[in-house]
């Protein structure tokens, strides 16, 4: 059995723990994990986007908060983010900023498309 994605994740965390921050995947409250995961459909798993644009992983927290505030006030034009940013609390934005800022670099894995088996239900 292989766990390629998460060996990389864990080794990143070992580095962090050496500097005193112990962060296992569940170190964030469930509330933040659920919310951050709901951003993944557009921004990629843990903020690592498959398409190379819109990655959030590793963005420093103050930049993240400033961007979200700009979407909330409308000072930054957007196709969709103003509609997402307005529904969140300040505390949620702070927690998400923290979450994405500590995500270590990670290669994105995409599933390979394949010919359809016509027996599919």
């Amino acid at each position, binding site marked *: *059995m*292989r*766990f390629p*994605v*998460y060996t990389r994740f864990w080794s990143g965390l070992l580095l962090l723990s050496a500097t*005193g*921050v*112990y962060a*296992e*995947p*569940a*170190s*964030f*409250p*469930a*509330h*933040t*994990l*659920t919310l951050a*995961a*709901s*951003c*993944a*459909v*557009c*921004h*990629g*798993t843990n903020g690592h*986007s*498959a*398409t190379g*644009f*819109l990655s959030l992983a590793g963005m420093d927290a103050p930049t993240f908060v400033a961007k979200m505030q700009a979407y909330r006030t409308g000072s930054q034009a957007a*196709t*969709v983010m*103003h*509609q*997402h*940013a*307005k*529904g*969140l609390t300040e*505390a*949620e934005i702070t*927690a998400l900023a*923290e*979450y994405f800022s500590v995500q270590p670099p990670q290669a*994105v*894995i*995409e*599933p*390979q*498309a*394949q*010919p*359809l*088996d*016509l027996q*599919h*239900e």
Partner: protein
Amino acid sequence: MQRRDFIKQLAASGLIGMPWFEAHAAPAKKVQGRVVVIGAGYAGTTLAKYLRIWSGYGIEVVVIEQNTQFVSCPLSNLVLGGSRSINDLTFGYDLLQQHHGIQWVHDQVTHIDTTARKVTMRRGEMTYDRLVIAPGVDFNYSAWPEMQHAEAQRLVPHAWKAGPQTVNLRQQLESMPDGGVVVISIPKAPFRCPPGPYERTCQVALYLKQYKPKSKIIVLDANPDIVSKKALFLNAWKALYPGIVDYRPNSTVLHVNPVTREVETEFEHVKADVLNIIPPQRAGKPAQMAGLLNVDSNWCAVDFRSYASTIASEVHVLGDAVFSPQPKSAHIATSHAHVCANAIVAIMSGQEPDPEPVFANTCYSFVSDRMAVHVANVYRYDAEKKLMVTMDGGGLSDAPSDLEGTYAQSWARNIWSDALT
């Protein structure tokens, strides 16, 4: 090192004051037990993956899925328009299994005994500590006895589960002579993917405009009006496909002749060259087997903090099968899975689930091969209403754009990567 020592060390380092650490909810010891997941669509795959990760790979997860491949409904309307092939939307489950140590059973569930906590399949049976049912929708043809045979459903495809049905509908469009009539019938809400039928209308219109310009589409909608993104779709039909789309509200199909492709509504008789009937829907068969359809005998009521059924608390229901005011979308299905995975980890380690989960939803729809529009909202649990309620600030695109088309394609690649690897 013991967890207590860690906390001491963190206190000494001052880190304990960090906001995310204070709400630290990691299980004190490894969570154990077996969760069986029925159905590996958007909800089931996501649940299985995050249950493994968030339990620190402690909980044993077994997935039972009847198909060997995952075929994405999102983007499947583009197969009708011609800008995508079904083979672009079909994937294996191998990476998901390998990366997360998920046990996989390729079989069809035939019976569920929630008292004995036992699932029976065609080729075996299995017991569980907790069960997650993520079966998608089941099509309900009971209003039309003439549509109940497999042959009738081949002549009149639904194409509302992506796969051979999508290919069949595309082939029928290709074989239709120019000047033909395509009829698309839409059931009363709620159904899977509220903007989906109107996106489909755009995609079929795109094909006809290019290859069969004398043809038209009659949309027979059982609803009193367009269910989702109304102005955006009406404008798209007018601007991009003038004279092709004939939209008729309040048009429930009462009778179908699958051989001659004729339908009757309360008001009229319509003859089609290609007939696409999207049937009424209900929670998928495994949810029926467990006796969980307690809303209008069609959908499953759940506790939105855990997705536990209101009938059987150790059985969770996810995705399209759930009764809720939110749209039945792939994005929502994955959000159900995230809330449920967190709740199961909490419950199995003797803690309370998040009392106020929050998540986002966006549904993109393609109005042409390149341009898309969206509807987006944030939903938050309301303890008094016991529902996920819509936060202020959500909304729609101003107009279709190529930029949103690019974002929608990117959405698909990211959700596939998240759910399937």
